[in-house]
């Protein structure tokens, strides 16, 4: 009996908690489909009388959200793929090759991970200005093409692959390059997926850096565009919520489908991407 009560209590708390976690999302969706008068009704309406999908059309027309979306897709894709490429190569060197200064280099990289990225914004801005890259896709992408976090995670996985496989490939006459891309990378697929998804989420949601290095509408990513839109939308919360949904939705879909990898990635590394 006591056990049963405990079990019911557990579910009650978890359901209440889940309701609080979901509430902002449901409220966002609900508001995004309301008419203006409905948004300010007290008591609040959860299900609007008519689902006003035109809010989405209007909000997306009000500001160049399509352009923002394209920018976000470009920046996220290039950053993620580029970073993956540089990290796979570096992780291979750290896990399978011997070279002078390996340990020192590794410690230096570990040390730099301790430094708050916000501190680097100022010198990086100056560097990019000198390269005339401010207000270009380059500024949004190039500084993020290397990530120690990704290198470390991949190195760990590469190291866990038995040496015998490496020797076997060598005996078969495979070059290191071939072994890396045709053996090591396919074996490490789940870790690679995990770091990829974490990186996609990170790039998509990044705000401070794109805010600083762009000042034209044409180059804004979705979060920066949305922030700018808040002043245009004013008190039109239905439009604002529609636009917010538009920004959040792709990552939620990605998360639902690739949840397993994201969770595994976080469990393995315990660090934010």
């Amino acid at each position, binding site marked *: 009996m006591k056990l049963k009560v405990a079990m019911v209590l557990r579910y009650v708390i978890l359901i209440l908690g889940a309701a609080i976690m979901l509430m902002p999302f449901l*409220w966002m969706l609900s508001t995004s489909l309301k008419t203006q008068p409905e948004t300010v009704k007290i008591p609040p309406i959860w299900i609007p009388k008519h689902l006003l999908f035109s809010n989405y059309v209007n909000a997306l027309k009000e500001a160049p959200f399509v352009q923002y979306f394209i920018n976000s897709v470009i920046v996220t894709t290039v950053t993620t793929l580029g970073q993956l490429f540089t990290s796979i190569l570096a992780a291979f060197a750290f896990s399978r090759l011997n070279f002078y200064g390996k340990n020192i280099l590794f410690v230096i990289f570990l040390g730099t991970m301790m430094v708050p990225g916000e501190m680097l914004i100022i010198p990086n801005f100056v560097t990019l200005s000198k390269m005339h890259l401010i207000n270009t896709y380059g500024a949004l992408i190039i500084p993020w093409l290397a990530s120690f976090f990704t290198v470390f995670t991949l190195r760990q996985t590469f190291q866990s692959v038995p040496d015998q496989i490496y020797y076997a490939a060598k005996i078969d006459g495979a070059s290191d390059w071939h072994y890396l891309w045709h053996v090591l990378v396919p074996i490490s697929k789940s870790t690679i997926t995990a770091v990829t998804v974490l990186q996609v989420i990170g790039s998509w949601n990044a705000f401070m850096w794109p805010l600083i290095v762009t000042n034209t509408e044409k180059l804004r990513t979705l979060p920066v565009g949305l922030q700018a839109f808040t002043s245009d939308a004013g008190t039109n919360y239905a439009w604002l919520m529609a636009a917010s949904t538009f920004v959040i939705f792709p990552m939620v879909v990605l998360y639902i489908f690739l949840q397993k990898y994201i969770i595994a990635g976080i469990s393995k590394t315990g660090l934010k991407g």
Partner: protein
Amino acid sequence: MLNAKPTIKSTLKALLYLLPMLVISITFSIYPIIKSFIMSFYTKYDFFKDIVSQYGIDNFKFIFADPDFHLAVKNTLIFVVGVVPLTVIISLVIALLLNRIKWLAGFFRTVYFLPFVTSTVAIAQVWHWIYNSDYGLLNYFLGFFGVNAISWLESPKYAMLALIIMSVWKNLGFNIILFLVGLNNINERYYQAAKIDGANAWHQFTNVTIPLLSPITFLVSVNGVIGSFKVFDEIFALFNGTPGPSKSALTIVYYLYQKFYTEWKYGIAAASGVILFFMILLVTVFQLWYSKRHVHY
């Protein structure tokens, strides 16, 4: 081969593999670390020509005397102290509950983690709406308990609390996942042994779960402290590009942003970044020292 001594040839080869990553990280991570320390001593700097005509410690003098910076440090500390313990405790409780159920466990995990994948800027707009003093959902719910409408985002008294609530909500899921991993790694035998010794549920919790979970608790706290020290997006989005009413949510990174981006005082901004670095370093070293005594690996 694998355990062979490094040679010139193997080093050259490794260098080729490392090259793309090295070029980027030296330019955009290692060089700027050194550069920001140097920039913090720039007292006369022409950004357009990149000419420094004077060095000195004036930036630090200015910051240490600047009431805004004092406020930023104070607010940052309040934020850290508000967010980290709350997040750790709530996520631990949720993880413990999730660990004891089977039915719907996956569903709950998905729901609790959802905020982590969402754009801070976008979800802050939703919270902005929830906190609305006239039509917001929160004041409506509080009305049931006889609480008068609160101006969450307009009153300096409540702005920080509003920021803390939203941040805890956003960070819970990440920590829950880590705690779940930790709980899974605790060997069932310890509990059996405790039971044989006559330990009740509470004693099992305090004498088995808590000590064996301490490495994860440590990791979660360090992550939380470092992340909270750097809070920015949440503030910018929740208060529409301001540091809150009467600067009530001005934090160190927000201060850095203002000095750098709106006032173009590069030296002062860099100096505040250096101070942030040392503060985080200090707290992390302290946590490490503390963990040596209290974390059971």
